[in-house]
């Protein structure tokens, strides 16, 4: 039997379009606040789990590793979990596993996102979420797939753009009382409808903003929660489900995966009727329609009638019977992906323990549910929390919290602060494998190819060599199928993959097309052409327009677009073919790359470091808890998670007093190519301080370097990255044999 798990403390930064803090500094700010909220110290925390969404946002491979110190994970059990946009509600679930299993008594749960590092725009990180062979060449981005889903949702459930705009306005208004809110505003549905059109039906104010922020919560078992005399709010149910990555093979109008996750959570929580048994909802709302789309699933009502009635009767409002997003949601508080989900968990905690201040729902609350969504319209995570007799707290600093009370340093532009630019060269050649090679061979011949899954009686497009829903049964029969079909949903886009506007007057129309003659749910995504945008309709019939044979290369772009077919009869010609031979020529690779650049703020501490280096100085930061000075400068002490001030706690260090602690002589550049001249990287320590500084040692060959040699900081001038941190020997060395 699982241990009961309670939330006993919360911390969060402001939600900001752009923060000066580094990802680690943001995490540390939230963690420190959560520790204080729970009345604990870092030593009281048994384990740490961290949720953060794509590495492509923060611009750090293995981002979870980078965040260890800030999350309080040094010398502790630390693990990151990840499920795309659904991560934030997976975070408490993964923390729940730590405690419910009996493995740990307490667990710090941290969610962080720093989306602003990504250039040209964080939205660009989404171009590489799509299938690299069958979708990425179309240069889709997340707004496109949302728009396709939104159009389908509106078509099936009959919502108008105005009705969805009303949801956006309501949620943004709810955020007016949230202290962390980034985009809280009192606007009308007209304001949403009149905001710039990005990709019909999506307008700017239908979407949540990109954000930087961190949120932390502390979980504990019941014994500790009760002992701390908090008003513990218990995790009563958890659920998480992941759908197929083949997102064109299902109707996007209803998220079955969310409903399944909700059923799991409800079963665990003993909820029979969610409409009756749940008092308020925090569905994930990155787009306004998503709040209702998810609510349909959370209420287990595929007909959508319940939500429609609640919406029309005003009962989704804070004063209604089934309020949604009382926090202000992603639309109003902001959307630093993983941190958003955990903010929603924090809102359940605040509401259920009477700490929501002006947002407090004015009725007795027993249970709330939070949900996140992610991946390719694919992941659902659900948590039910309950007050379980906890007395509402009457005095809590959260009740009166204001934005200025929360940590976080918003900046308008990265140019305002010390920053480092970097463009990684990440290139790939992917093995297509047998089935996709056969599919691409078909495209080169002007044919769309599928493979027949006899277990489930599905013709699968693109061709696959196993049945993903039929016990992984082998699939060996390949067919050329027709190139006509029906538009299931569409969007008229005015933006590029990186959110930059298309040339004036140009639009791209993307559509999910169900192909003729095979299962209705087996579609593909492509562009439409030879049609005016206003003439596109769901249900219209279309046919592929192919490139000339000589120009086809075995690529999804061998289809130029799909064009209207009209009502004329078509002759379906489905013919079994022989798949490609398995040889190194037919198994060619698909080339690809990550097309992003980054500009990293140096953070609160890094700004001090680089400002000093520019003057030829080095400062450490005094940590009172350990009574020592640390270098490089620090905004937090990773041992205690105490906050430090690199300016007021600065202690000057003689830049000429360094000694080589360790070193290496490097013969290759960042890509593994031989350097023309070897370079020495040194770790330099300074007397009386903890820590060290890494830099390049110049003016001496590799075989002239030894541990303990005295070095001094070279130069001053522009300091814009680690390669500018240069040391030289204080004395001319005698050649010595390198230890080898």
């Amino acid at each position, binding site marked *: 039997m699982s241990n009961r798990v309670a939330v006993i403390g919360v911390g969060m930064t402001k939600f900001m379009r752009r923060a000066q803090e580094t990802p680690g500094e943001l995490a540390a700010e939230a963690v420190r606040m959560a520790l204080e909220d729970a009345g604990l110290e870092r030593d009281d925390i048994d384990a740490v789990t961290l949720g953060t969404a794509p590495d492509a946002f923060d611009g750090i491979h293995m981002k979870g590793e980078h965040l260890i110190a800030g999350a309080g994970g040094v010398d502790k059990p630390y693990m990151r979990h990840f499920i795309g946009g659904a991560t934030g509600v997976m975070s408490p679930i993964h923390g729940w596993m730590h405690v419910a299993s009996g493995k740990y008594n307490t667990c710090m749960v941290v969610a962080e996102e720093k989306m602003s590092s990504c250039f040209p725009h964080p939205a660009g990180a989404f171009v590489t979420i799509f299938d690299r062979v069958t979708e990425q060449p179309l240069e889709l981005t997340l707004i496109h797939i949302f728009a396709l889903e939104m159009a389908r949702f509106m078509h099936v459930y009959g919502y108008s753009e105005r009705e969805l705009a009303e949801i956006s306005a309501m949620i943004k208004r709810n955020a007016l009382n949230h202290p962390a809110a980034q985009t809280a505003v009192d606007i009308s549905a007209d304001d949403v409808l009149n905001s710039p059109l990005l990709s019909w039906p999506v307008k700017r104010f239908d979407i949540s903003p990109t954000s930087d922020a961190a949120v932390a919560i502390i979980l504990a078992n019941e014994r500790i929660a009760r002992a701390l005399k908090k008003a513990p709010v218990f995790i009563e149910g958890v659920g998480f489900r992941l759908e*197929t990555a083949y997102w064109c093979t299902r109707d996007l109008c209803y998220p079955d995966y969310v409903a399944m996750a909700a059923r799991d959570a409800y079963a665990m929580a003993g909820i029979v009727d969610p409409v009756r048994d749940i008092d308020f909802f925090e569905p994930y709302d990155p787009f306004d329609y998503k709040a209702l789309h998810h609510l349909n699933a959370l209420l287990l009502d595929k007909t959508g009638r319940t939500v429609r009635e609640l919406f029309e009767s005003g009962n989704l409002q804070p004063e209604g019977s089934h309020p949604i997003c009382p926090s202000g949601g992603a639309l109003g508080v902001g959307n630093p992906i993983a941190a958003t989900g955990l903010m929603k968990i924090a809102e359940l905690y605040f509401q259920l323990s009477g700490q929501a201040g002006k947002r407090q729902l004015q009725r007795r609350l027993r249970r709330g549910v939070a949900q996140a969504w992610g991946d390719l319209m*694919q992941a659902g995570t659900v948590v039910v929390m309950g007050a379980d007799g906890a007395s509402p707290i009457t005095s809590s600093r959260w009740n009166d919290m204001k934005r200025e009370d929360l940590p976080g340093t918003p900046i308008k532009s990265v140019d305002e602060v010390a920053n480092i630019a970097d463009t*990684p060269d*990440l290139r790939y050649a992917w*093995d297509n494998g047998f089935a996709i090679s056969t599919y691409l061979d078909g495209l080169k011949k002007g044919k769309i190819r599928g493979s027949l899954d006899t277990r489930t009686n599905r013709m699968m497009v693109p061709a696959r060599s196993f049945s993903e829903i039929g016990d992984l049964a082998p699939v060996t029969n390949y067919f050329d199928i027709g190139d006509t079909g029906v538009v299931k949903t569409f969007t008229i886009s005015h933006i590029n993959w990186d959110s930059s506007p298309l040339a004036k007057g140009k639009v791209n129309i993307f559509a999910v097309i169900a192909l003729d003659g095979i299962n209705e749910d087996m579609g593909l995504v492509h562009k439409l052409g030879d049609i005016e945008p206003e003439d596109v309709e769901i249900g219209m019939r279309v046919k592929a327009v192919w490139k000339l044979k000589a120009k086809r290369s075995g690529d999804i772009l061998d289809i130029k677009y799909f064009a209207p077919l009209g009502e004329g009869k078509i002759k379906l010609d489905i013919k079994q073919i022989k798949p490609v031979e398995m040889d190194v020529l037919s198994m060619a690779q698909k080339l690809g790359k990550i097309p992003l650049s980054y500009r990293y703020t140096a953070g609160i501490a890094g700004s001090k470091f680089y400002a000093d280096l520019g003057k030829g100085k080095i400062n450490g930061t005094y940590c009172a808890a350990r009574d020592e000075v640390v270098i490089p400068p620090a905004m937090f002490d990773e041992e205690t998670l105490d906050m430090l001030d690199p300016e007021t706690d600065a202690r000057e260090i003689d830049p000429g007093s360094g000694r080589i602690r360790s070193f290496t002589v490097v013969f290759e550049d960042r890509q593994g190519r031989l350097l023309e001249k070897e370079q020495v990287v040194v770790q330099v320590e300074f007397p009386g301080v903890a820590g060290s500084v890494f830099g390049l040692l110049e003016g001496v060959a590799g075989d002239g370097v030894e541990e303990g040699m005295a070095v001094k900081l070279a130069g001053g001038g522009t300091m814009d990255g680690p390669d500018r941190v240069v040391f030289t020997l204080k004395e001319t060395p005698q050649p010595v044999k390198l230890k080898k």
Partner: protein
Amino acid sequence: MGVAVLGMGICGFTPTSTGLSYREMIAKAAKMAYRDAGVTIDLIDGAVSAEEDFPSGYSIADEYVPDQLGMVRKPVYTIPGDFMHAVASAAMQIETGRFDILVVESYSKASNVLTKDEMTRFAFDPVYNRFGVSPHWLAGLELNSFLMESEYTIEEVAEVVVSNRGAAISSITSPYGDNFTIDDILDARPVALPLTELMVAGYADGAVIAVVGSDEAAKKYARSPAYLAGIGWGSGNSILERRDHSFSAGTAVASRRAYEEASVVSPYEEIDAFFVSDVYAHRQLMHLEALGVHGTQRPVVNPNGGALGGGDLFEATGGARLYEAFTQLRGEAGPCQTAVDRVLVHAWRGIPTDSCVVAILDNERRSS
């Protein structure tokens, strides 16, 4: 509640794997694991994947997990950690009592990543540590620190390579088996001195799958399970300037917990074989020290050749060690077989991390 490994499957373990997509490779390994575990897909409650985004080339690697495992619409998530982190996460899930059988997956298509050093460099702190030189600089510096602070010599580091790549000659899952001398290793092309090219594991492609479940599930379905006696994980300081580069604190944290759970007091005496991360040769020795196994002792380490012999499989690397340990516990390791009843599997996430996992596995459930 006890947790066991019911069965495992692999595919690939070769420097390149043209002809198989990652999906096809994983599906093959999954079918092998399910059969080995004696389970059908409908008996499996969910999956945990161990993946990072950039090695997969996708911004959200998690999207592409469920299909090739047959886990569509089931509870599935990703641990951006080593395979053994995912095993630990799955074990916790099972210990909540709400899940019975789970599948753990990881894979490498390292041959598909054309700029691997650039990717590794991208894991370094951009403010302080992302130099324009090879990311191996940290391994070279770490090796130097280890030699300065420990009793080990560079020759003993080289001996790790000789031993592991030699052992790998007899292993069908280890493509880098070969006969080297200590001088071959020391005289190899310098990368980040004192680190030479042969002290670094080469890359390999491969998929690893483990089916883990409760002891009850193991008893019911598996022909020859391995029992998890203890598992711990831990991370050293991610601020490199304040990390001791001669010692793996992450391993020490992880082993403390694993030993406590498995009631291990004297690891050298009580554990028959150690499957330890050797992605860099010196790391094998550094990890053993942190595991409480010292230079004067001569434990059985990486009898199948480790990563130096089998290749760096990105996040699947620890899974390869688990597979080797699993086959050893079953007595199915062929020419690499040694006498084992209790083994230790260790995983490390590679530079620039000090994040590690330690697991103790037995061939039968011991009373606690």
